[in-house]
């Protein structure tokens, strides 16, 4: 499998080009998304990984046209089947949203209306884009609930959301998203609020549906395990930018960005020695109003060099890996040496010595 995140031969379903999303607030301009480019092929899965405030959710909400009411300043292009969604009117956007592109949110309880039966909300989703009778829409709604694995759907359709368990609510949300057989499903932390056994069920469900319906998926998550299970390609976001993007295999095999290393080394593993120390990323993510100069990651980066504090890196291809792009000012040789040392269980401090870098950019 090769990475097709940035450019490729096949016609992409969604292509986001140099997207900027800014919010003007009393405290200043929030640069939520700062020039990101990615694409999703028909039937493919892109995983967007990042922590709180990395811009991963805002970029997807913008694709759905949902940041407009918040007064977002949007520039760049979002090409969906060749049409630029940024230039569409609200009415045109409404025809696409929930029809060609659908979204599943993190919290299934607050995404369902508590006063209406699950069925009524599903029927509404069906009828919003199809001129069908209520009874036809109801039949479709029952089918959808069955499709997402809710037992006895003909009866459960008349339940209220509170009568569903967390996992069932998320299934209902997915059913609603599938109502009009979207070509693209955006799932924003779809399993974060769920228990691990239920999470495994939902991930398996999404994979099955993708196989059966052939839709493309953008999955947004902070959980590297979840993207490893689901995604073909992965984009790692930090402070509003994509800092590294490649195929899932490459990202876990030879990650290039110190932030990606940090993420991989901060998660405890189910196997291996318990004595393995976690290597946290020091500090916390920057404010998106006043970002650090130079590389945005430099205040937290163990391998920072003097010029990294002034030069702003751009996504560049990793030599020898056509589908692997990284925004890092370290040389490819230095990066290879550092990751190799980290893999051997050395601390960042020791790793720096092995490649002969100056610590702290002194």
């Amino acid at each position: 499998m090769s990475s097709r995140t940035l450019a490729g031969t096949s016609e992409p379903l969604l292509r986001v080009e140099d997207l900027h999303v800014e919010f003007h607030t009393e405290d200043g301009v929030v640069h939520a998304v700062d020039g990101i480019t990615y694409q999703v092929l028909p039937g493919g899965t892109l995983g967007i990984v990042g922590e709180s405030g990395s811009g991963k959710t805002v970029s997807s909400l913008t694709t759905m046209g949902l940041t407009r009411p918040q007064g977002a300043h949007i520039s760049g292009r979002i090409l969906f089947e060749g049409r630029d969604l940024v230039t569409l009117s609200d009415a045109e956007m409404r025809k696409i949203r929930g029809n060609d592109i659908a979204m599943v949110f993190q919290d299934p309880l607050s995404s369902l209306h508590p006063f209406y039966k699950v069925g009524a909300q599903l029927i509404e989703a069906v009828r919003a884009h199809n001129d069908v009778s209520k009874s036809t829409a109801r039949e479709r709604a029952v089918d959808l609930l069955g499709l997402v694995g809710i037992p006895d759907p003909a009866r459960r359709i008349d339940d209220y959301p509170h009568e569903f368990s967390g996992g069932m609510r998320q299934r209902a949300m997915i059913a609603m998203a599938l109502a009009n057989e979207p070509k693209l499903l955006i799932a924003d932390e779809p399993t974060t609020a769920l228990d691990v056994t239920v999470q495994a069920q939902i991930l398996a469900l999404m994979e099955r549906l993708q196989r059966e319906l052939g839709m493309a998926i953008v999955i947004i998550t902070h959980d590297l395990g979840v993207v490893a299970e689901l995604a073909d390609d992965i984009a790692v976001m930090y402070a509003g930018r994509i800092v590294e993007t490649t195929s899932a295999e490459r990202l876990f095999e030879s990650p290039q960005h110190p932030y990606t290393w940090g993420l991989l080394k901060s998660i405890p593993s189910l196997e291996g020695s318990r004595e393995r120390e976690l290597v946290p990323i020091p500090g916390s993510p920057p404010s998106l109003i006043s970002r650090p100069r130079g590389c945005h990651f430099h205040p937290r980066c163990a391998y920072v060099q003097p010029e990294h504090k002034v030069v702003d890196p751009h996504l560049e291809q990793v030599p020898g890996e056509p589908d692997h792009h990284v925004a890092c000012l370290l040389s490819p040789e230095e990066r290879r040496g550092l990751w190799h040392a980290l893999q051997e269980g050395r601390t960042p401090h020791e790793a720096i010595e092995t490649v002969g870098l100056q610590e702290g950019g002194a």
Partner: protein
Amino acid sequence: MSALVEVRDLVKHFPLTRGIVLQRRFGEVKAVDGVSFDIERGETLGIVGETGCGKSTTARLIMRLLESTSGSIKYEGRDITRVKGAELKAIRRDMQMIFQDPYSSLNPRKTVGSIISEPFIIHRVESDKAARKLAVQELMETVGLNPEHYNRFPHEFSGGQRQRIGVARALALKPKLLIADEPVSALDVSIQAQVLNLLRDLQRRFGLTVVFIAHDLSVVRHMCDRVAVMYLGKVVELGGGDALYGAPQHPYTGALLAAVPVPDPARHHTERRLLTGDVPSPANPPKACRFHTRCPKAQERCSVEEPLLRVPEGGRTEVACHFPLTEGELAQMGVRSAG
């Protein structure tokens, strides 16, 4: 030396009532339903399980934040199940808790200094103001906060730093037992590791006994010497971390481990066996073995006779199951560390 805490047949049922003025009982939620285990001195005991399994209730019962319905809790050999007043206060000094949400567990109107010095005031230690301030600043330094931020308010700190404030407050009275209830689940991945390292480091430094409650199995494995797996108010498996993760015996433990997504696409397997359905309601749990409704190995005996927690022949953990997992089954379930 005996265990620091001995929990025996601990039960907590929450009544379900109807009506506002005349409350009638019509049932009860069996949050914790007969749980027994020891907490050894200096160890980290992990409690894992899904939502509603009773892990937080168990912690709150040990802390005496909730009154148990029946059963006993012994602390240093003394029964503390019903102690009150000054006696209870004295015990509370030895047990401290860190909570999940670093936003709602700190009073937003108090400065960090006064939040951390509160335990000193309540228990009348360090009554001299200057000495107290010094002690608080030392604590702040211990947990990796800048002591100069003594007069700042919680909102001026990030989530990870707030959790450090919670840790400092819990350590103020030099407790013997620290109960951490999902201490990192509200934090971002990179910050999680900072707090986990801090807790591990503090435990080594002060020889703390820790009860670590979490739903994240990898985090629990990293932190804990022994692990108890709970399901619907019962401990279903209890044992050393390596044994339990390496060769789980209870089908539920096996299913939990198989469900964890692995950050390694090369190991991706869709064909692993998944548990079906949801956890049943603790107000009306299944009879006998509570897992039999979802268990792939369930037989008739499981719905009639309740299995007791014991070490089966050749087993390395205590397990409450009539038909513990075999090695072949473990491999089939896709439990990664098996074999």
